[in-house]
Every structure is written in C-alpha cells, then in structure tokens.
C-alpha cells in the first residue's frame, strides 16, 4: 500500500482578513489515485486546492506538488498539471475547436485535441460557440482543456454541480477514464455520493479543517453505524417478534413503517425469516446502508446541505 506521494501538504493555512479559510491542513495525495475532498460550501476546499495549484499564496505551511513548490516553481509545474476551475466560463462566441487550439498553444507539449473531443463526446460540437453548449457539454469542454497538455495530475473542482443526475453519472465515467490513463485525479465536490462512488480516498473538510481522511469504506465502517431493514406492514404488528432476534438490536415503528436496526451480513435474512414465521404481511422491504452523508452527520452533528 506504500505509494508515492504526488502532493504533500503540511500545516497549510490561509486567511482572508479575519476569516480563516484553511486552518492547519495536512495530507498527501498518492500517485494514480482519485483523491476526493468533500465538505459543505465554504469549507475551504477550493482555497486549499488553489494553493496547491499555485493560484493562491498560502499564509503558511509547506506544499510540494510533483516535487515542486507551486509558488516558486509555478511555471515548471503548470505544464504538468491540468486544472478545471470552479464556476469558470469562456467567452460566449469562442468556438469549441478555437478554445482547444488556443489552450494547446500555451503548453510546450500537448496531445492532439481531435481525438480528445471524440472521447469526450464533443465531436459534433466542434464548431459550436461556448454559449450554445449545455451545462454538461461545457464541463466536458473544461475537462478536455484540462487534459490538452497530457498532465500527470488533474484537478476537478465541482465538476458536476448544476448537472442533472444522468449527466452527472456520465461525468463520473469520464473521471474513471482519466485515472485509467494513469493520471492522478484530485476531485473537489460537495456531493457525498459522488465522493463515495468515485474516490479511492476521501478527505472530509469542514470549517477549514480536515476532520476525517480515509477510504470511503473505512470512513463508513469507522462509524460503526448499523444497517437498516425498512418495510411497511399491513395490519397489526408486534415489534417484539423482531427485536428478540440475535442480529437485530432494536426496532422502530412509525405508523405502518417499520425499521429494524442491526449488524452483520445475516441481518436481512434473519428479519425476512422472522416475518415469514410469524405470518406478518409486509411490502416494500429494502435495506439501507450508512453512507458518507451519515459519516459527515456523525462527525459534525449537521446535515450536509446541497
């Protein structure tokens, strides 16, 4: 598991006047992983990443990216990273192919932009002006621009904000593709589900600090949260029939909706068996596992809001 650290951040701090945006943040990003930074808006994610990209000067702390200092070696670093900025737009009348050729001219070494358009599903939008692209197409163009210099490391900031669920899923596939090509991906998002589905490791940020960092599975396991079996009953139901089962810790009933809490892989089988033997009629049975959402809730006592 010992992998090469491609980004090293130590005790990073950045304040805007009296507001401390990032407070004593330290972490590493390994080569070849999809690293996620999640947290609510204003948690300090973008500031952290802009310090790493060299776009912002930290107040204190050490940053090394690809063994370079993003401030001092900015112009050695920039050709080697790809950047998609949060809430960025291009000129309305700039055509897709013009944007790609323009950005290609800024880098000493580039890939051919035509296959890139093909891969990102923009080939038929080649001559379209930026203003005429849909939200998903704009984001795909920004991904294409961030890949034009064949970077070793790609930063994607709020890639799927404002996209419908279908476009969001398509974007996730693209991010996995980027990693398949051997690039390291640094993803910023305020969608917990996105981080859980995509990332190898996730740093959860809140109020300028990293409050947890691990794989999504470990984060969820560390909660020691219980799985839930949820179903609706018809007619009378005695919760005692389930709460006596060894796998079940407790049972809640709200009207005809019943939630059985418990642990272990046998929870569902045990609940279903229990219901069958006692002859309870039920419908809409489903299981719910804890998610990163629950991790955030447990760590901060607050819901993550979109």
């Amino acid at each position, binding site marked *: 598991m010992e992998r090469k650290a491609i980004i090293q951040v130590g005790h990073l701090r950045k304040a805007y006047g009296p507001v401390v945006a990032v407070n004593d943040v330290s972490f590493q990003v390994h080569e070849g992983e999809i690293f996620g930074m999640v947290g609510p808006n204003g948690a300090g994610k973008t500031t952290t990443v802009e310090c790493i990209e060299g*776009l912002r000067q930290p107040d204190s702390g050490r940053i090394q990216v690809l063994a370079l200092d993003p401030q001092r070696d900015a112009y050695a670093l920039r050709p080697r990273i790809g950047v998609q*900025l949060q809430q*960025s*737009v*291009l000129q309305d009348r*700039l055509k897709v192919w*013009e944007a790609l050729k*323009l950005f290609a*001219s*800024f880098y000493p070494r580039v890939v051919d932009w035509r296959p890139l358009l093909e891969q990102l599903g923009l080939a038929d939008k080649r001559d379209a002006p930026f203003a005429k692209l849909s939200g998903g197409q704009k984001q795909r163009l920004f991904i294409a621009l961030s890949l034009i210099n064949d970077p070793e490391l790609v930063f994607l900031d709020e890639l799927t904000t404002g996209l419908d669920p279908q476009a969001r899923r398509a974007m996730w596939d693209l991010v996995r593709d980027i990693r398949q090509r051997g690039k390291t991906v640094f993803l910023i998002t305020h969608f917990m589900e996105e981080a859980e589905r995509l990332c190898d490791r996730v740093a959860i940020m809140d109020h300028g600090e990293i409050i947890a960092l691990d794989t999504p599975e470990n984060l969820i396991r560390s909660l020691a949260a219980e799985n839930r079996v949820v179903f609706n009953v018809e007619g009378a139901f005695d919760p005692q029939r389930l709460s006596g089962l060894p796998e079940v810790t407790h049972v809640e009933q709200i009207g005809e909706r019943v939630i059985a809490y418990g642990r272990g892989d046998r929870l569902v089988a045990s609940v279903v068996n229990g219901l069958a033997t006692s002859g309870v009629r039920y419908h809409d049975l489903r299981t719910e596992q804890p998610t990163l959402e629950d991790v955030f809730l447990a760590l901060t006592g607050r819901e993550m809001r979109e």
Partner: protein
Amino acid sequence: MRGLWKLTWTEIKLFLREPVSTFFTLIFAPMLLLLFGSIYGNEPSPFFNGKGTIDISVPAYTALIIGTSGMLSLTINMSVYRERGILRRLQATPLRPQAILAAQVIVLFLMTILGMALLIIVGKAVYGLRFEGNPFSVLLAFVLSCLSFFSLGFVLAGLLPNARTAQVVAMALFYPMMFLSGAGLPLELLPTTIRKFSNFLPLTHVVTLLRGLWAGESWSKHLTEVGVLAAILVVGVIVSAKTFRWE
C-alpha cells in the same frame, strides 16, 4: 510567445464577432463622417481656421475611437473577463500574466488603428480629405493617446467592483466626455464656459493634439497635451498595477 500570438488572434476574431464593439470602433465614426459630410461638405471655412468640416473631423473622430477603445471596450472586457473567471482560467496555464494583458492591449490597439484607417479612407475617397502634418508625428501622438487611454481603462476595470457597474460607470463617464471634449462635436461649436470645463477632460487633450498635428502644427505648441497624456499614462500604470484584480 506562441501563446501570446494565438491569444491575440483569437481575441481579434472574438472582437469582430461582437456587433457592439465592432460598430463603435469601426463603423460609428465613418458613419458620423458621412452624415456631417453630407450636410456641411468639406469646403474650407474661416470658422475652422481655413479647414473643412471633414479635415477637422477625421482627427477628432480618431480621438473618439481611442476613447471608445480605452474607456469602454477595455474597461468592460476586462471586468467581464474577470467576473466570468476567464482571466483566472488563463492564469492557470503556463501563459504569463503580462502576455494575457498584452494580448488585450494589442487587439484594441490594432482595432483602433483599423478604425482610424477606415475614417481616413472614407474621408479621402468621398470628401477629398486634406492632410498637412507629418504622418510620423500624428502616428506618435496616436500611440501616446492610445496608451494613455488604455491605462485609464485598466484603472477603471481595477476600481469598479463588477461587470455591471463597470459598464454603467464607463458609459456615464464616456458619453458626456464624447460631446464636451470636441471628439463628437467640433470644439468651436461649444460655448466658451463649457470649453473651460472641457480642458479638464482627458479626451479634449487627445482631440487638440491630434487636430493640431494633423494641421501641421509643431509639437512645441502642444506641450500641455503631451504632458497631460503622459501624466495620465504614468499615473494610470502605477494605479492599475496596485488595483488590478484577476478575480
């Protein structure tokens, strides 16, 4: 360097695709020239010191285009680019910040020259425009005036908080100046009380300098104008270096 030229070329195309900027930089002044030329012709008149309406209008409208480029186009472009994150996106590439700004200046400079060229062509072809000055002197004054007004545009873009305000303030400053500086209407038509006020407008100095050199007057007669424009340039560069924001 390749990035700078590519950005400049792209910006030229974008400029020409934008009807508002194209109209005010390239079409509006020749249109005024045709309008007033058709009313007054270009006969020498004692009112204009022996010059015709067209002879004095071409340098004055050149000043008008310089003002449009510097105070409107540059101010509004820069604040829109900043607000939309275009400057920031460019900054994240290996392109140097100086190149990003230089591309804007080069594009507007070329468009302003093109505007002046169109004016001269129309004036010459339709009304037999007369020129008694030294072309190099006029060109030098043109460059000084452009730089001076472009620096003013950078100051405004730096001081004004967002694109909307920039648009409103730039227009509110520019349109009265256009009429009171002699750029839109000959200074000779303005009452003396207003002409005293005109002397405080930067664009008046561009008009006076260009008209003077166009008519063959010497630089020594226009040290005030040169001094004022050079001072605006120096102060503008210093102030915009302090106030210019990328985001």
